[in-house]
């Protein structure tokens, strides 16, 4: 005998599942729309740099040194007569690649370390003390030291920038794991004999995604800035590969007579970092359960 089945109360239709609803709400957030739009444009410019640039970015033209922006050189030329417009387009490739690569490395490494530290308490103290140690080293100093030791190059720069970001991600993930592992649904999963790797994958990992997206965007923005700073200091990407940072570094000496060499790449760095940050803020607002669930609490 069983009780008469009562119809369950469907408050919402299937299309109103929390994840779908949140995804829709994302596009109503102006920060997200602005950030995605700007980044898409810059990404397209970077991908199409070979077609959009009218001159080879490393072609030296001594007769065209320090020309102001004009119909021939849209954003002017630098002290070697190289076309700033072309260099900025190609520079976008390097900057975006570094931002994306650093964010990916930091997030993946931090996620693994954070999950392990949060769930396996034996390793927690050891791993987190190592992370604290890494955090104690100033980013720029570490990067300069690494570049000095192993020579300038995109890979070195990426690794040098990514390492100090790992502990931030690891701490974030660990804190999420520590709170989620106390949730009754995780205990229930232990109770029904779910193996530890599956518990991590099914029940814990999904909770880290929202904060990770947000942290990832900040890491990406920070990496673009750090690369610019390193290149500006001469410890970054070698000058034959144009990046926003070393374009500005080289324009430094002639800033008073040819400000455009610094202004345009500077503007691109500022705009990209702003877009990534605004996108991160927007994602945080939409994914923060306190804000996203605000309405549910009123019921």
């Amino acid at each position, binding site marked *: 005998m069983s009780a008469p*089945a*009562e119809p369950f109360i469907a408050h919402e239709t299937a299309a109103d599942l929390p994840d779908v609803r949140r995804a829709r709400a994302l596009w109503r957030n102006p920060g997200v729309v602005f950030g995605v739009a700007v980044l898409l444009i810059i990404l397209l410019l970077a991908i199409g740099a070979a077609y959009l640039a009218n001159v080879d970015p490393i072609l030296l033209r001594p007769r065209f040194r320090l020309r102001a922006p004009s119909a021939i050189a849209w954003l002017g030329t630098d002290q070697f007569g190289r076309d700033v417009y072309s260099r900025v387009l190609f520079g976008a490739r390097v900057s975006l690649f570094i931002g994306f690569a650093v964010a990916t490395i930091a997030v993946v490494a931090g996620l693994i370390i954070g999950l392990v530290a949060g769930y396996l308490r034996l390793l927690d103290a050891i791993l987190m003390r190592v992370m604290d140690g890494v955090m104690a080293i100033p980013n720029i100093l570490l990067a300069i030291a690494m570049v000095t030791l192993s020579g300038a190059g995109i890979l070195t720069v990426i690794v040098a920038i990514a390492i100090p970001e790992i502990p931030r991600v690891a701490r974030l993930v660990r804190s999420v794991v520590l709170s989620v592992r106390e949730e009754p649904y995780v205990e229930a999963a232990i109770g029904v004999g779910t*193996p530890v790797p599956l518990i991590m994958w099914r029940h814990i990992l999904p909770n880290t995604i929202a904060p990770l997206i947000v942290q990832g965007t900040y890491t990406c923005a920070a990496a673009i800035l750090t690369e610019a700073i390193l290149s500006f200091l001469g410890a970054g990407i070698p000058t034959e590969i144009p990046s926003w940072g070393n374009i500005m570094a080289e324009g430094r000496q002639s800033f008073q007579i040819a400000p455009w060499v610094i202004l345009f790449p500077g503007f691109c760095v500022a705009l990209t970092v702003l877009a990534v940050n605004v996108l991160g803020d927007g994602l945080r607002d939409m994914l923060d359960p306190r804000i996203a669930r605000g309405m549910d609490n*009123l019921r």
Partner: protein
Amino acid sequence: MSEAPALDIQGLSIALPRSAERGFAVENLSLQVRPQEIVCIVGESGSGKSVTALSIMGLLPRALKATHGAIDVGGENVLTASRARLRELRGNRIAMIFQEPMTALNPVLSVGNQIDEALQWHAANGARAAPRKRVLDLMESVGLPDPEQLTRSYPHQLSGGQRQRVMIAMALANEPALIIADEPTTALDVTTQARILRLLRKIQRTHRSGILFITHDFGVVAEIADRVVVMRHGRVVEQGSVDEVLRNPQNTYTKMLLEAVPSAKPRPARLLPKAEAPILTTQDLQKTFSDAFFLRAGRKVRALDDVSIDVHRGETFGIVGESGSGKSTLARCIARLIDPSGGEIRLDGEEIGNKTQAALRPFRRRVQIVFQDPYRSLNPRRTIGQSITEGPRNYGTDKGAAWARAGALLDLVGIEARALGRYPHEFSGGQRQRIAIARALAMEPDVLIADEAVSALDVSVQAQVLDLMERLRDEFGLTTLLITHDLRVAARLCDTIAVMLNGRIVEHGPAQKVFLKPEHNYTQALLAAAPKMRHLERAATEPSLRAKRSNPETNIGY
């Protein structure tokens, strides 16, 4: 009574945002609270009782708007008052006591300072004669021991009951016309609840304040109310004196609510085959929590102190105790979610207390646990079908069979089987708790542990889930370990009861005996403190509830 009421709400309607499933949080509500009167608003979750309280304080969330009516406090309409005026009114004329005193008090200020602050902000300027004396008087009047010493204490150093007394002292600081108490005893243990209710009644005699008391518990209503307002879905369904409403309810919803309240009468003893060896035993089980680290010796807390129980097949074994008694620790040790520090746990004679996690695997499926919070015990990102089949799939049941069985189980707990593909947020709290029970049953356990499984539910839903548990027990002969703080719930289901205090079992025996002839004085105190519904079971010709209440000055001490 020709006195002006302390609170006069006329035709109040509060609109909900468009997206909500009903138009109004509160609809056409009218009620009065006179000075020295305690009016109880009773209702289940979603009835609009808390929204009403917030609107009186002028603290409605932005999304909610009062669209009609007036809230008159001492001759002034709160709804039209300016923000500055509202701030003056709060604390001066209206004060509020919240459910959770720990979060309502500032953790970094001493309680003396906080009471003093309530005085400073709201007393008329210049009239602050001897504030310190006033603070001490207030603390004395709410029955806080050694006020002189306690003024320097911080909230975390006080017990839950003492914190609630501090809240009450702050509420009384400026002799407000109206005190709103929003579930002020729900988070407290029964014995503490009884003392706080007695305190509120005493205050009602000596102060002029009217009290609007919000609760979901008819036991509390019977103890404290002068008048009762029953709310459902934002509307008043019945309103009247406590005697009228509780003894002779007119509305069917009120009748249903009153019937759903479990009485503290133990169930008649069942015939159980006791000859067999117990299925679950613990022998001198111990659990010590310590904050020791490396070589440093830490503080030790004995959460379980030599606990020995025998649970027989088919029996419902109740473990009753107040917060901190160790009852949940016991449940979690038996389910092996935490490791015991000493003693034995035997399941069907096999020792499982010190097995490693790997060795525990075959045993896990035989003991299942249902948790207290129905909102957190199901993973919000997984469909309920995935949650129910997770366990059987771990033990090798093939997918089709596991899902078919999950459907059958849903049907068994009274939810349509086609809901398997739905997510937890689409279900009410009671439904989720049934889903959690279905998940436990999917493992075909020998022992089901219900750790406060009905405590978070509304009383009518609670009755349904208890009915379900009773039915499952009778049909499948399920052995149940029922952990609860609520004696009424234990009385409803249990064959055997163990009463826990400070990690020890102080009394233990058949439910009939423990309820009717309690031996330990703590058990007696617990029974005395449980909100009484028994008044109601007597004839309506007897003296009124108010007259029957015990003298507030007496102590129950144990």
